[in-house]
C-alpha cells in the first residue's frame, strides 16, 4: 500500500512524540468512542440540522498527488481525489463487505469465476456527455490491460484478463484466462473507476496531469503541482451509489485540496481555520483534535503492517524461530505507546474490516515465556549479552523498511526491545524506496515490513502465493493450496473457509508476524458533516455538507 510518504524533511521531533503519547492515547480513545457509535465515519450529526447545499470545502493533503489518474497511480492522496471524479461498476458495503450495484444494476459470474457479465444502469453519462455504455466499459478494461505496469494497482486486478465483449449496448462480459474470484470486488475500487473514451485516448501523462473525464459527482477543475487541486460539483448527477444517503447531485459546490507537507503546520492550519479539513493526522497530533473537531477514521482493510520473514534465509527457515518471534511481540503495547488506539493491534494477517477476516488473537497473544521455551528447545542459548546463539551463530536478524508510514521507525524500535527480552536481536535497516526494492528483489534481508490495502482477501495470494510476489520465498504448502483455492471459488462461504485456512496457516507457521492495523485518520472542523470512508477506506465527499 502506498501511504503518504517522503518529503517529511522535518518529520516530527523525536522527544515530542513520546511526551504527548500518553495524553493522546487517553483523548483519542474518547474520539474513537464518539466515532464508533451509530455512524462509523464519526458523524454525530444528531443536532446538525437539515443539510444545506453549496460552499467550498478546503482540505489539506500531506503530499502532492503527483498523478490524478486513479487507474494509474496508487498514492492515497491521488485515490482520495480520484474517488470523487469517477464511479465504479459496483460499490462495496464498508460494514459487511458485500458488493452492491452502482453503475452496474446487476451481474452474473460463471461457476468457474472466469466470466463476469454486467448489466449497466441506463442514462448514465460522463461529464463530456458521452454515455457510460458497454463499449465504454470495454474500452476502460482494454486500456488498463494495455497500460500494464503503468496502472500500478489496476493492472494487478486484471491479471489473466482475456478480453471484454459488448453483448448489447447495456451488457458487457469480461473474461479471464484463469479463475479470478477477486475481480468482482476489484470493480468496486476507484482503481477500476470508469473514464470516458476520449480520456482513454489521451496519453498516460496527460491523464496524470488532470485530463480526466469521469461520471462521478465532481468534475476536475485544476491541478497546480505541489500546490492545489480543485474539483467542482457535476450538475445533473443522478446515479450515486446506493450506499450514499443523498440521491442526486453532491451538496458541495467545490472541493479545494491544498498540499501541506509538514504535519504540524497541517494541524495548525485546521486549528486556526485556514482549512476545513486535513488528512493524515499523526498519532502525536491526535490529542489536539479530541474535542471540537470531527475525526474521521477507519482501519485500512487488507494485509496489516507486519514483519514478513524471508523463509529462504538460514535461521528463519526454521519454523520454530518464526513461531517464537510470533509469541514475543506484544501487539497491544504498540497501540498503547508509539501509536494510538486508532491503530488496532493486529489479530490476524488481515485487518478486521477485510471481508473474510478470521480472529486469530489467541494465536497472536503475547507469550514471552512460550517464546523462550521454543527457542531453548530449538537449541538457541542466551549469551552473556542476553542475545541467544547456536553453533557460534548469534540470533541477530535484520528488518528492511521504508518511510511509507511516519511512525514505522518507533514501531520497529519497540518491537526491537520486545524481541530483545526473549534474546532475539533485531537490526533496523531503513532504506530509500529504490534501495528497498533492490534489496528485496535480491533476497538480501531477514524481514521486510509493510502493509497492502485491499478490501478483498485475495491480497494474501498476491503477497504469499508462490505465483504471487512471494517476497518471503515461501515454499508450496497448505497455505498456497488454500490461497489458490479461494481465487477459484465464487460461493462466499466456501471461499471464506479457504481464506480462513490460509490465515491460520500463515500465522501458525510464522510466515508473517502481524503487528498493527494501519488507519486513515482525517480531521474535520465541526461544521463539516456527512464525510464517509468507503470499504477501501477512501474518502467520499458526495454526502458532505458544511453547516452555515
Amino acid at each position: 500500500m502506498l501511504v503518504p510518504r517522503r518529503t517529511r524533511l522535518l518529520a516530527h521531533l523525536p522527544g515530542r512524540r513520546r511526551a504527548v503519547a500518553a495524553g493522546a492515547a487517553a483523548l483519542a480513545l474518547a474520539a474513537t468512542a464518539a466515532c464508533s457509535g451509530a455512524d462509523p465515519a464519526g458523524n454525530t450529526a444528531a443536532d446538525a440540522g437539515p443539510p444545506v447545499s453549496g460552499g467550498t470545502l478546503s482540505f489539506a493533503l500531506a503530499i502532492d498527488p503527483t498523478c490524478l489518474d486513479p487507474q494509474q497511480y496508487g498514492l492515497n492522496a491521488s485515490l482520495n481525489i480520484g474517488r470523487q471524479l469517477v464511479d465504479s461498476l459496483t460499490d462495496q458495503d464498508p460494514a459487511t463487505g458485500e458488493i452492491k450495484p452502482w453503475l452496474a444494476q446487476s451481474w452474473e459470474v460463471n461457476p468457474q469465476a472466469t466470466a463476469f457479465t454486467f448489466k449497466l444502469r441506463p442514462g448514465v453519462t460522463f461529464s463530456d456527455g458521452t454515455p457510460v455504455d458497454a463499449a465504454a466499459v470495454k474500452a476502460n478494461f482494454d486500456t488498463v490491460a494495455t497500460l500494464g505496469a503503468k496502472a500500478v494497482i489496476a493492472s494487478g486486478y486484471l491479471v489473466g484478463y482475456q478480453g471484454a465483449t459488448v453483448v448489447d449496448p447495456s451488457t458487457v462480459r469480461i473474461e479471464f484466462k484463469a479463475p479470478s474470484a477477486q475481480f468482482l470486488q476489484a470493480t468496486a475500487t476507484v482503481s477500476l473507476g470508469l473514464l470516458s473514451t476520449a480520456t482513454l485516448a489521451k496519453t498516460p501523462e496527460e491523464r496524470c496531469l488532470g485530463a480526466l473525464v469521469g461520471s462521478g459527482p465532481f468534475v476536475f477543475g485544476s491541478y497546480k503541482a505541489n500546490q492545489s487541486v480543485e474539483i467542482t460539483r457535476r450538475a445533473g448527477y443522478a446515479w450515486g451509489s446506493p450506499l450514499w444517503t443523498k440521491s442526486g447531485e453532491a451538496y458541495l459546490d467545490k472541493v479545494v485540496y491544498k498540499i501541506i507537507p509538514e504535519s504540524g503546520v497541517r494541524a495548525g492550519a485546521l486549528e486556526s481555520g485556514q482549512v476545513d479539513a486535513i488528512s493524515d493526522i499523526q498519532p502525536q497530533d491526535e490529542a489536539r483534535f479530541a474535542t471540537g473537531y470531527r475525526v474521521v477514521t477507519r482501519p485500512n482493510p487488507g494485509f496489516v503492517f507486519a514483519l514478513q520473514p524471508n523463509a529462504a534465509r538460514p535461521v528463519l527457515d526454521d519454523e520454530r524461530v518464526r513461531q517464537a518471534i510470533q509469541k514475543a511481540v506484544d501487539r497491544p503495547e504498540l497501540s498503547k505507546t508509539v501509536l494510538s488506539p486508532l491503530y488496532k493491534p493486529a489479530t490476524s494477517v488481515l485487518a478486521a474490516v477485510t471481508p473474510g477476516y478470521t480472529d486469530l488473537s489467541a494465536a497472536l497473544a503475547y507469550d514471552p515465556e512460550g517464546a523462550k521455551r521454543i527457542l531453548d528447545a530449538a537449541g538457541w542459548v542466551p549469551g552473556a549479552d542476553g542475545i541467544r546463539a547456536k553453533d557460534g551463530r548469534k540470533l541477530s536478524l535484520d528488518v528492511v523498511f521504508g518511510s511509507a508510514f511516519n511512525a514505522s521507525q518507533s514501531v520497529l524500535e519497540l518491537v526491537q526491545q520486545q524481541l530483545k527480552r526473549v534474546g532475539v536481536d533485531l537490526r533496523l535497516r531503513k532504506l530509500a524506496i529504490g534501495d528497498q526494492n533492490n534489496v528485496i528483489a535480491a533476497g538480501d534481508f531477514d524481514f521486510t515490513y509493510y502493509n497492502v490495502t485491499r478490501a478483498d482477501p485475495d491480497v494474501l495470494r498476491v503477497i504469499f502465493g508462490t505465483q504471487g510476489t512471494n517476497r518471503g520465498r515461501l515454499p508450496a504448502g497448505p497455505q498456497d493450496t488454500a490461497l489458490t483455492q479461494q481465487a477459484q471459488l465464487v460461493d462466499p462461504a466456501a471461499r471464506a473457509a479457504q481464506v480462513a485456512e490460509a490465515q491460520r496457516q500463515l500465522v501458525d507457521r510464522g510466515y508473517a508476524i502481524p503487528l498493527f492495523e494501519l488507519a486513515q485518520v482525517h480531521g474535520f472542523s465541526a461544521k463539516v458533516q456527512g464525510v464517509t470512508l468507503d470499504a477501501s477506506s477512501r474518502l467520499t465527499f458526495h454526502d458532505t455538507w458544511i453547516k452555515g
Partner: protein
Amino acid sequence: MARYLLRRLGQAAFVLWAAFTLSYAILFVLPGDPVDIKLGGLESNAAPEQIAEVRDRYGIGDPLLVQYGKALRNALAGDFGHSIQTGAEVRTTITDALPETLKLTAFALLLAVVFGAGIALLATYVRGRALRQLLLSVPAVGISVPVFWVGLLLIQVVSFQWRLLPALGNDGFESLVLPAVTLALPVGAMIAQVLAKSMTTALAAPYIGTARAKGAGRVRIHFRHALRNASLPTLTLFGVVAGNLVTEAVVVETVFSRAGLGRVTAFAVDRQDIPVVQGVVVLSALIFVAVSLLLDVLYPLLDPRIARDRAPLRRSAARASAVQGAAA
C-alpha cells in the same frame, strides 16, 4: 578588460559542463532505479517485460556513454527530457516552478541585505561599547538557529496565534512575508558578520587616518571611504549565498507549503527522478555562474586594480576573507 571577461566566460562554460557531467555520473551510479520506484509499488505485480518497455521509453536501457551523449546534446538545446514520475516535460516543470522561487529568494535577499548591512554598519558606527557588542552578537544568533525551526515558530506565532499573515500557499505578497523572513535570517546574519568584520579592518587602515587628517566627517569616512573598500568580501559572499538560496528553498517551501523549485527538487531527489534532478542541478549551476559573472563585472568598478594583471590575487584574497568571515 575584454580579456578578463573572456576568461571569465570560458570558466563559466567549463563550470556548467562539469556540473552537468558530474551530476550525470553521480546520479547514474546511485543504487535504485526510478522505473522500479514508479512501477514496483508493493501492490504492483508488473511483468518484467512491461517494466523493460517503460525503461526503453526513457532510454534507461541504452549504454551509459550513448545516454550521456544524447543527454548532453539535448541539454545544450535546453531539453532535459521528461519527468519519470509525472511524465511532464522537465523544462516546463522547472519553468513553472521557478517564478515562485525567484520571487521568494529575491525578496529574501533584499531583506537580508537591508537588515544585514544595516546591522553591520550600525554596529561599526555606534560609539557605545555595550551597544556595539550587543549589535555584533545578533548575527551569531541568526546563524545558529535552524531555518525550519524559525519557520515553524513564525507560523505558530504570527499565523496560527496572532492570525496576521497566512502560513501557507502562494497567494499574493502576504503569503511571501513569513517564508522570505525565514529565508533571509541566516543570509542577513552572514552578511552582517562579514561586513562588520571588513568594516572594522577598513576603519583601522592607514588611509582612514589620512582621510580624517584631511578633514572628512565621520559619516563620509564610514560610508564613502571604509564601506567601499569593505564591500568586496561581502559582495563575494553575496554571490555564494545567492546561489545557495535554491537549496535553502527546499526547506522553506516545504515548511510553508509553497509551490516552487525547492519542492520540485525535494520530490525529484526522493523519487530518483533523474531528468528533473539533472535539470535542477544545471539550473543551480547556471545561477551560480551568472551571479559570479555579474560580480566579476562589478569588482573592477569598485576596485579598478582587479581588472589589471594582478587582479586574480586580489580577488581570491577577497574571497578568502569572505569565507573566513562566514566561518567566524
